[in-house]
């Protein structure tokens, strides 16, 4: 690895200040599971790493009156062992469990996963189906946005220069919402997603309420399958309807054709995975 400087500020303010002072030569460091690899292969112009992983306000998981707050520097390992997450956001726990291996999950952070913003980010679909919002902090203070607005393109977020991701919020009404996450990779351990999918629904009086479907690795950013959701809303959850919604979801994706998988195969996976996460979500909702 080439020569670099490293600094670990203890507040978001200090971190933002350091980033703005150093311009493009500085880069925030979270868990480092992606960034340190990039630095070894293609260091680019980065000369200063601003380690934000120990900043208190980026850490912790707590339930408030607004909902569930997950600090951006919370590791997947922490999510997987957190009682609130285990009880109320199992899809996020499931997604965390599929990321890398134990060692990666102990270092990697949920915020890092979102900021890296690869289309296959495993935490994204699970957060999207729960209508998560994110808080970012910059030179002008903090702002909050729906998580869908955070993703702009492959490795591109809506973070302005010198802005940092502070935390992720799951609205109170979606805590405990029936949901499911499914990832398909090239092997069982340490796999990158060829496709990942999440769904969340409520069922009231036998009808689907607030359906959400999110898919990863099938478009430049993780996406919601809005047309498929629309088909499901306020309908009776029948297997036929779920199959139809899954077919619509296929049309909403724009997967790539690469050495990991062909476009046609990714479409097949979207079809299968969407059906499975919907079916499972309906089962959970029906067993309430």
């Amino acid at each position, binding site marked *: 690895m080439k*020569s670099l400087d490293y600094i670990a500020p203890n507040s978001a303010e200090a971190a933002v200040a350091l980033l703005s002072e150093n311009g493009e030569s500085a880069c925030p460091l979270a868990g480092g599971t992606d960034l*340190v690899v990039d*630095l070894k292969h293609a260091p680019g112009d980065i000369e200063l790493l601003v380690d934000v992983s120990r900043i208190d306000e980026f850490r912790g998981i707590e339930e408030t009156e607004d909902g569930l707050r997950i600090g951006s520097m919370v590791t997947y390992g922490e999510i997987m062992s957190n009682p609130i997450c285990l009880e109320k956001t199992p899809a996020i726990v499931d997604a965390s469990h599929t990321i890398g291996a*134990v060692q990666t999950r102990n*270092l990697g952070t949920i915020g890092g996963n979102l900021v890296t913003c690869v289309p296959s980010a495993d935490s994204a679909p699970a957060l999207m189906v729960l209508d998560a919002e994110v808080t970012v902090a910059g030179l002008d203070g903090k702002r909050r946005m729906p998580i869908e607005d955070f993703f702009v393109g492959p490795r591109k977020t809506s973070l302005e220069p010198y802005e940092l991701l502070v935390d992720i919020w799951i609205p109170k009404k979606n805590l405990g919402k029936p949901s499911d996450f499914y990832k398909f990779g090239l092997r069982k351990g*340490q796999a990158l997603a060829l496709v990942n999918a999440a769904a969340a629904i409520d069922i009231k009086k036998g009808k689907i309420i607030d359906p959400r479907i999110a898919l990863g690795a099938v478009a430049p950013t993780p996406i919601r399958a809005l047309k498929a959701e629309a088909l499901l809303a306020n309908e009776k959850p029948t297997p036929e309807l779920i199959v139809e919604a899954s077919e619509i979801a296929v049309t909403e994706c724009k997967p790539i054709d690469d050495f990991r998988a062909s476009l046609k195969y990714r479409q097949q996976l979207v079809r299968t995975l969407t059906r499975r996460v919907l079916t499972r979500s309906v089962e959970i909702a029906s067993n309430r």
Partner: protein
Amino acid sequence: MLIELRVNGELRSADVPPETTLLKMLREHLDLPGTKLGCDVGDCGTCTVIVDGVSVNSCLLLAGRAKGSEVTTIEGLANSNTLHPLQQKFEEYGALQCGFCGPGMLMSAKNLLDNNPTPTVYEVRDALAGNLCRCTGYTKIIEAVVDVSRDMKAESDA
């Protein structure tokens, strides 16, 4: 930059360039070459050590981030009188062949049993999935870890 940390219970320090990974610091600055470099990008797990109670790939962790931490490496697993039960069972089962994955594998196994003394076989497999092994098919490694946990259970039941 000066990094002070506690390695295998001992306070250690070294002055290292800021881009130094914990792996490099352990191997080259602290004379602890038991932790191996196999891929240097977090895929193979041969560099696994335990930092503040959780297992990590030390090739991905900058030494600066481990400042002040408690680090356990393979060199700290046994003591001068006894092998760690995992080392003992790995030996009895012939669990390691070329041995290059061994230090990382053992640290992952230790991390599992520290957090979950009675894992299922699936949990053992899951806990070791970040440690690639090309020699053994993992079979005897998994058997050895399960056996250690069985002994631990028997001990705690007794």
